[in-house]
C-alpha cells in the first residue's frame, strides 16, 4: 500500500533559557513519513534547522521506547499528543493529516520551570522520591521468592502503580499543576506490599510534605491526569494516598 507523506506546519515554543522570554516560531516540514514517530519528525526538523545554520530545537528524549519517561512535549493541547496511553516517542505521525498545523509546547507548570525550548526541569520529582519513595532494607542474601506471600490483587495493583515512569504528564495536564497522581503512584506501589507497608505512614507524610513544599498545586479530582497518563495510572491511587496520609496524620 502506498503511503502519502505529510507536509506540515509546526508551531514550536522557543525559549533561550530559564529567565528568557519565550515565543512561538513557525516551521514548514515537507515529506514526513506517516510511519515515523513524533521524535523522528523533530529530528528531521532539527536537521533542517542545522542545515539552515539555525539553532536546533532542544527537547528531552532517551530510550525512545516508552519506558524512560524523558520525552515530554504538549502537542496540540495534550500531553504526549493526540493518542491514548503513549509517550511522545510512541506517537506516530499517522495520527496527523497532511497540511496540519501542529502546536508543540513544553510542560507548563510552576513546578517544572523551562530550561530551554521544550526541555523542563523535572528534578522536583527526584526530590519527592528522595523524601520517602523508597524502602529501607538490610541487603543481605537473596530472599526466597515465595518467602512473603502477597495476594494477587495487591501484587497487580502495586504493579499498575509502579508502571508510572515519572514523565510529569500528570502535572503538565492538571489545571492546578498538582503532582498527586505521581506521588500517589509512588506511595501505592510500596504501600500495597508487605515490604513497603512498614514505612507507609512516614512515607506518605514525607512525600506529601515535600510535594507541598515544592509548590505543586492541590488535587481537585478532575481526572485529567489519569486521562493523559501514558501508563494509565488510575486516580484510585490518589484515594489511597489520601487514605494513607490522613490515617498517618490522625494516628500522630
Amino acid at each position, binding site marked *: 500500500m502506498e503511503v502519502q507523506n505529510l507536509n506540515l506546519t509546526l508551531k514550536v515554543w522557543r525559549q533561550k533559557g530559564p529567565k528568557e522570554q519565550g515565543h512561538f516560531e513557525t516551521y514548514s516540514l515537507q515529506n514526513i513519513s506517516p510511519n515515523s514517530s513524533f521524535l523522528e519528525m523533530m529530528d528531521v526538523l532539527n536537521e533542517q534547522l542545522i542545515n539552515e545554520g539555525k539553532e536546533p530545537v532542544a527537547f528531552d528524549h532517551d530510550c525512545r521506547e516508552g519506558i524512560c519517561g524523558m520525552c515530554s512535549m*504538549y502537542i496540540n493541547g495534550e500531553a504526549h499528543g493526540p493518542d491514548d496511553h503513549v509517550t511522545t516517542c510512541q506517537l506516530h505521525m499517522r495520527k496527523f493529516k497532511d497540511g496540519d498545523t501542529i502546536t508543540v509546547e513544553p510542560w*507548563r507548570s510552576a513546578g517544572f520551570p523551562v530550561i530551554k525550548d521544550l526541555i523542563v526541569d523535572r528534578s522536583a520529582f527526584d526530590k519527592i522520591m528522595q523524601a520517602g519513595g523508597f524502602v529501607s532494607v538490610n541487603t543481605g542474601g537473596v530472599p526466597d521468592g515465595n518467602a512473603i506471600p502477597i495476594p494477587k490483587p495487591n501484587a497487580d495493583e502495586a504493579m499498575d502503580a509502579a508502571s508510572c515512569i515519572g514523565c510529569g504528564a500528570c502535572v503538565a495536564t492538571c*489545571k492546578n499543576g498538582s503532582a498527586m497522581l505521581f506521588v500517589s503512584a509512588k506511595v501505592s506501589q510500596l504501600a500495597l506490599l508487605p515490604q513497603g507497608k512498614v514505612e507507609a505512614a512516614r512515607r506518605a*507524610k514525607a512525600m*506529601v510534605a515535600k510535594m507541598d513544599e515544592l509548590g*505543586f*498545586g492541590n488535587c481537585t479530582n478532575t*481526572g485529567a491526569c489519569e*486521562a493523559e497518563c501514558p501508563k494509565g495510572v488510575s486516580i484510585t491511587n490518589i484515594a489511597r494516598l489520601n487514605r494513607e496520609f*490522613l490515617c498517618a496524620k490522625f494516628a500522630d
Partner: protein
Amino acid sequence: MSNPCLLSSSIGKKFLMSITGLFFVLFLAFHATMNAVHIFSPEDYNAICKFLGANWYALVGTAVIALGFIIHIAYATILTIQNRKARGTDRYDSEVRPASVEWASKNMFALGVIVFLGLGLHLYMFWSKMQLAEIMGTVDAIGAPADGSAFIMYWFSKPWVVVVYMVWLVAIWFHLTHGFWSAFQTMGWNNKTWMSRLRCLSDIIATIICVAFAAVVIAAFCMSL
C-alpha cells in the same frame, strides 16, 4: 521529622473542604425535603417554619451552617489561589479537555461563586425576612416571619425570580455532581469498585435535590398564574 498540623498540608485543607461540603449535601437534602412539603400542603410547610423559627435549635443550626460556609469558601479561595500559582505564569496556547473530565470539575470555583451570589439573594429574600425578622422582632410587609408560604408565593410569582433560581439550581447541580464523589475521593474513601458507584450516586443525589427545589419554585409560579 517535623510534624506540621494537618491543615497546613494540601490534603488536610481538602479534607476540610470535603467534610464541610458533605455537610452541605445533608443540609440541602433536609432543606429540599422541607420545601417539597409546600407543594402538597402550604399549611404544613408553615408549621415546619414555625417549628424552626428563631428557636434555639434552629439558631444553633444556622450558626453551624454559617460557620461551615465560611470555612468552605475560605479554604476554596486559599486552594484556588495556590493552584493558580502552581499552574505558573505561562499558559498553554492550545488545550484539549479529555472526554472523561467533567466540565464541572474544572469549574468548581466559578460555580461556587454563582452559588454564593445566589445565596446572597436567597438570604435577602427569605432568611432576612423570616428568621432574622423574628430575632429582630420586625414584620415584613409580605408576611409574618413564620408565614413561609407567603414569601414563597410572593417571590415565585415573579418570572425573573423563577429564572434566577433556575440558573442558581443548575449551578448547584453541577457543583454537587462533582463535589459529592470528589469529597469521598479526598477522604480516601474510594477505590476501583466504588469510583463508578460514587460518581453515579453523585448525579442521582444532585438531581433529586435540585429537582425538589425546582419543583417548589415551578409549582408556586404555576399556582400564582
